[in-house]
């Protein structure tokens, strides 16, 4: 084997190292938090379908529906100043048919996602059932009712705030 060929092989092997982390989520302590995947790219996900059923019975009837208005969720990192320190908070904002909806702080882990609307303790807890780069399936359970949400990554445009005037 010639020296140049050897060096080419070594270079290619070395180059493989560069791709070892491709498409991996942002990681803290190697736990690959889900938020990195949610905010990747435009960070927008569209609610495609919901399925609801009674979880207290075997083989329950499943009611499937699609949202009547286009509903998207925009995940991004919100930064603000606290005592002279910039704090980054994982955030999601909902838009329904171009209208801005509520905004939540997000705890997004691989197996669980929590939306918190400002409360210190509490929040809406979702169980992650399916976690793929372009599809997320989460469930929410309260009492006997379970709702399964299916989201698709959509690269949707974030609705811009409409101009308004209240005086002058």
């Amino acid at each position, binding site marked *: 084997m010639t020296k140049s060929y050897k060096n080419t092989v070594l270079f290619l092997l070395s180059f493989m190292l560069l791709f070892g982390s491709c498409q991996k989520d942002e990681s803290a*302590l190697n736990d690959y938090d889900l938020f990195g995947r949610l905010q990747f790219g435009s960070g927008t996900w569209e609610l495609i379908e919901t399925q609801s059923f009674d979880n207290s019975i075997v083989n329950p009837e499943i009611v499937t529906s699609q949202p009547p208005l286009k509903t998207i969720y925009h995940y991004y990192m919100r930064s603000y100043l606290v005592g002279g320190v910039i704090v980054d908070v994982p955030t999601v904002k909902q838009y329904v048919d171009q209208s801005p909806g509520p905004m939540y702080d997000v705890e997004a882990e691989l197996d669980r996602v929590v939306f918190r609307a400002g409360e210190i303790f509490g929040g809406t807890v979702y169980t992650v059932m399916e976690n793929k780069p372009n599809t997320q399936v989460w469930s929410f359970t309260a009492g006997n009712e379970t709702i399964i949400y299916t989201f698709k990554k959509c690269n949707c445009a974030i609705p811009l705030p409409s101009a308004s005037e209240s005086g002058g």
Partner: protein
Amino acid sequence: MSAYIKGALLCIIGTAAMTSNAQLDVYLSPGYGIGFSKARLDRIQDSYTSYQTYLDNNMAGDPYTADPNWDSQGRIQTLSFHLGIAGDGVMAGISYFPYRLKQERYVMQQSGYGRKFVWKEARNEVLFDVGFGSKYIDVFGSFGVNLNTYKMLSYQVYPSGHESINSEYNFNGLFSIFDAGVSFGAGLKLKVIPFLALEMRYIYASDLLPGEKRSIIEDPSALADNSFAREPGTNHYPLDYMQPLTLDNEINPNFRRSTLQFSILFYYRQND
């Protein structure tokens, strides 16, 4: 491309070029292997037993069936990565073994309700190998660190089959902890087949770093669910379900593991 990666690439290629006329092989090898591993999991085993005791005492009218307790030994498999030099009587290198281990246990009651536990170990062994190297065989000792994230997931199971980790019940949760320890071991690498190497190594992964025993940094760590959605004071995965959920009823990581690993490596020998 970051400056660090560029620098690492230049070092590797430069070293290869410098040694191409010597009797040292520079290797950069992915590997795949299986291992037989034994772990210390007595604390989560005790916790699992106590959960069944809890059901015996509090839900006697709803009999249950439970999976056997957590396996502390079994077969594991992993990819691995190796970088180093060998030959001319010396061998030195770095090895990386990312182990991803997962076990599931169900405790199901006759009513259809139940609980699912999932135990995950994301173990990362980074080892420095030093020893005797030659054209066809390397013998080495290893030392390094293990960097691990442990997770215990506890789901409520409903009669419909749905599994939920929501905050409706205190027993639900996603309890995790990062822990590191010292690792050491020894191994043997055979390189008699072109482009391949067969490696056998033993790794003992301790749960402590030097100086950690009885130190202030050991005790405060426990399997914990730090979500804000949780009721305050119930954040720790309980060692004993018969006791109240408090921050004292906890599991400190002591999950040491020993592994006998057999790997097959791509190995390009420069000095044939």
